[in-house]
């Protein structure tokens, strides 16, 4: 029952994140989606991933909140009632498939005795590439900031 409730909340908050016009409300809905996803991970005994999801999600949402407040234009006109009702109907309709298409997949052991630390160690080459990507992104950001500063000074 709790999984079905989570699925409904997940689909509804994701739809609201896309549907709402005001960027700040939209980002708040996205935060709700991330929180529900991390609860789903906790229920699947994936505590590490749940913590990562929360921490990455919180950082991303803080930046999105700031930029959403800064960059978005406020909607000038109110939405008509029928559009809101249509969105509610779409949310209910989208929530139905995860509830009713219940097919329990039987567990099959593929790598049953691999620990989390071992799995991370086995994937270290991909990890190094991704860390290089992170460093590249950071250096790109610093270069852009310095370039803009030089342009504003000159």
């Amino acid at each position, binding site marked *: 029952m709790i*999984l079905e409730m989570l*699925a409904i909340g*997940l*689909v509804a908050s*994701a739809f609201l*994140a*896309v549907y709402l016009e005001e*960027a700040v409300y*939209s*980002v708040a809905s*996205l935060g709700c*989606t*991330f929180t529900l*996803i991390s609860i*789903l*991970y906790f229920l*699947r*005994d*994936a505590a590490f*991933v749940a913590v*990562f*999801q929360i921490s*990455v999600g919180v*950082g*991303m949402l803080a*930046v*999105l909140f700031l*930029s959403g407040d*800064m*960059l*978005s*234009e406020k909607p000038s006109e109110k939405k008509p009632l029928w559009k809101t009702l249509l969105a509610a109907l779409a949310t209910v309709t989208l*929530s139905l*498939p*995860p*509830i009713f*298409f*219940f*097919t329990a*997949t039987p*567990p*099959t*052991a*593929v*790598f*049953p005795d*691999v620990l*989390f630390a*071992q*799995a*991370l160690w*086995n*994937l270290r080459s*991909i*990890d190094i590439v*991704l*860390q290089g990507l*992170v460093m590249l*992104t950071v250096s790109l*950001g610093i270069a852009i900031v310095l370039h803009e500063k030089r342009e504003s000074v000159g």
Partner: protein
Amino acid sequence: MDYLVLSITLLAIGIYGLLTKHNLLKVLISVELIAAAASMNFVLLAPLPNEALGEAFLILAFSADTCLTAVVLALLVMISRKYGTCDIRKLAELENTGAADLGEDSFGELSEGSS
């Protein structure tokens, strides 16, 4: 509950937002939803509840996703500062009319008006 259906529903919502929304921030949120829908399969479709390989892959996918978000947000801020808008249609109009060079001035007017 079949997690694949949940993942596909989230993916569909993300694609809907990607196709119908014109604000660049909304497009970024839609991309985030698509990434979340795709990456949750690593854990939720793992054969065993405590499967470690899927978790490790998901953590790696998070780092790539964070890089993507950082780059897109930087581009978004730059576009907004240069042209004064985040609307895709207005940006396309600016490009078509050749008035893109006026972006700095319009941003200056906007910032003056807000202060």
